[in-house]
């Protein structure tokens, strides 16, 4: 009896102290994701910490910021950063191109499946394959120049990858060709999910193609556009290694025309036997990527808040 009464008191207390549904579910969620989160934290955390430690050492000795000073004053690293920055200019091009293609596909309907696959195909092709094929196409006597000459556009035939003045632009064209499909699919998926009534109302009000998509589609899928933009910005800053490595045979040439920060890190670590300099450069790159991610989350939060306010 005594036991029963104490049990009932405990139950009563328990009922009174029962957390809210939201609180319990977030604790439960934490519990379930904890194992995976710990593994991820260990893998990434360990790597980040060990790179950070290595960036302050030389030959086992603590050297303070010496490695950072060497890297940041290295004209080659600055050139590489500049090229990453220039590649960022491809992001708006990608967004405009992906948006235009997405709304065109949305309006086309007929054969959309085929066009969608055709546009998405480059995105799933392995980068080395793409880079090798374009490396051949862009040779001075390659397929592109043969075509241009055959249609009387001799003046447009260039040494696309051999001329340091245009090599980076050529490389970014390959990146755009490959990456645009990802944006098209993302945006198209979002556009299809939008309520059809809005478009019908716009049409009844007499809105044309561009008016409809710039005033309805664009704001409606803004989050997706921002997400795509940030993903591509991160790609341009820290994910173009494969393109550059294969298309320039690991040199970042001609001259240093296509040198990017990832290649600089790779060469420092594995060709120049300077892992400490590679680590210092990696820390710079990590910070740059982090800035982009923070910017993305801020913009996204503001955009969501804006949507709710509206």
């Amino acid at each position, binding site marked *: 009896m005594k036991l029963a009464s104490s049990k009932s008191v405990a139950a009563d207390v328990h009922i009174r102290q029962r957390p809210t549904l939201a609180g319990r579910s977030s604790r439960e969620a934490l519990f379930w994701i904890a194992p995976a989160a710990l593994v991820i934290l260990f893998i990434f955390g360990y790597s980040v910490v060990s790179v950070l430690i290595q960036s302050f050492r*030389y*030959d086992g000795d603590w050297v303070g910021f010496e490695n950072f000073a*060497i890297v940041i004053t*290295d*004209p*080659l690293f600055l050139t590489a950063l500049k090229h990453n920055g220039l590649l960022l200019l491809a992001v708006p091009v990608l967004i405009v191109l992906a948006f235009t293609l997405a709304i065109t596909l949305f309006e086309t309907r007929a054969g959309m499946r085929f066009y969608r696959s055709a546009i998405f195909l480059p995105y799933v092709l392995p980068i080395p394959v793409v880079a090798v094929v374009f490396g051949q196409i*862009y*040779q*001075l*006597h*390659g397929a592109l120049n043969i075509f241009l000459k055959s249609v009387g556009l001799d003046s447009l035939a260039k*040494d*696309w*990858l*051999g*001329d*340091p*003045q245009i090599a980076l632009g050529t490389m970014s064209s390959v990146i755009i060709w490959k990456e645009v499909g990802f944006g098209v699919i993302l945006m198209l998926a979002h556009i299809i999910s939008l309520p059809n009534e809005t478009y019908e109302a716009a049409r009844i009000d007499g809105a044309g193609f561009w008016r409809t998509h710039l005033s309805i589609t664009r704001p409606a899928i803004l989050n997706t556009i921002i997400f795509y933009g940030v993903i591509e910005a991160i790609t341009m800053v820290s994910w173009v290694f494969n393109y550059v490595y294969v298309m*320039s*045979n*690991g*040199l970042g*040439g*001609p*001259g*240093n025309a296509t040198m990017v920060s990832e290649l600089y890190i*790779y*060469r420092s*670590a*594995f*060709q*120049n*036997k*300077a*892992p400490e*300099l590679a680590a210092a450069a990696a820390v710079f790159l990590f910070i740059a990527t982090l800035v982009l991610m923070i910017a993305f989350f801020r913009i996204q939060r503001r955009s969501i808040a804006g949507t709710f306010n509206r």
Partner: protein
Amino acid sequence: MRSKKIFAIGAVALSLLLGACSSSTDNASESETTEEAAFPTEDLTLNISWWGEQEAPGAQKWLEESMALYSKEHPNVTIKHVLQTTDGLIPSFEAAAAAQSGPDIQYFWGGIYSQQPGWDGHIAPISDYLSEDELSHYINAKVESGFQGKVWTAPWYVNPSFPLLVRKDILADNGLAVPTNWDELMKVCDALSAKKITTIAGGVKDGWFGGWIYSILGAQSVQSQADVINAVVGTTKFTDPEHATWWTKLEESKNRKCWNDDINSLELYQAQQKFVDGKAAMTITAGPDAPNFVKKAGGDEKVTIMAMPAWSDGPLAGKMGTTSQTLGITKWSKYPQVAADFIKFTHTTERLNAWYAATGSMPADDRFDISQVQSASTKALFESALNGAPYLENFIPAQLDADAVFKNVQLVLKGSVKAADAAADMQAVMERLRKSDRKLVDNFTAWAK
């Protein structure tokens, strides 16, 4: 008292003598142990990471044959090999070194490429496992792989570096003779470019050809490899005439349209095909592959092999460079003595002859009998390599090669920079390298001694 003194001196002398004797006996037995240590009887596997099929086709067949023959002699030894790509050879070794795990035997190019892993502590000196007498037969062992009395790696085959292959038939068809000096070569370029024929086929997209050009043009104005090491450590500069004039010669060759117009968008091996196809009068190729190119292009009647025509009267001008591609034993190998024994096995007379038969190139061993070589051009190539000039690219830091030489050769051949700017950039990169590689000066200074 005096007798005591004499006794004491005698005792000390005797003990010193005995000590010396015992020490020499120990040394002798130690030397025996290193070379003839008790051969492991347990089952073991040796892994070889190598490169070379690219420049000496047939090398893989020979290597696999050698592995099989060795395993037949030593049934407890299994040998496996991985052929690396040109761009992957160094990075894959660096990754293995970082993990302190990987191949037992690693392929290295000569000079700095075999020195650096030794300085980094990633390989054990081959001289710890092979006798001095054995190593004395290995061509270029001491010049390129020697470091303060030790030898890091064992030369495998010779790379005459780098011969100019000339198609006599194309020159004759155009009323031209084989050039014997730089001025004559420039005149050939003028004559052939006027007829829209490429004089020299090359490709610098992958960079390596830039290093070759540096070595065959740059060597002509230095006295020896010591001059280059002086510029590396900062005693002299890469802008000094002895180190910089070759850039003007390269620029001149570009201005005289000696090269194929797509040299910047082609890799070296792609470009060399133009020579085989009869679309270029000359090309430069790896020495081990030169005999194959001669065959492919029509044999000795049509092709001649020569050193780059001289543009100066320096002691190395007009001489073929020579380097040996080598094999080293990694520091983490559990069976270094077995690895060394296998390397020694590849230098037996039968294996040396088999190498020549399989690849047509020259094994790096002076016990190889050159009289068996039938082709006149190949024989001349081998002889020139035996008395060749040091191969300069192997005496500069690899990073200087990639960051300054490869880069500026591309830019000069594109017409984007002038010779003087290229030399200045090379000097700037070198100065920067001395700051970032904080052991470089010490290592190169020690190497030069």
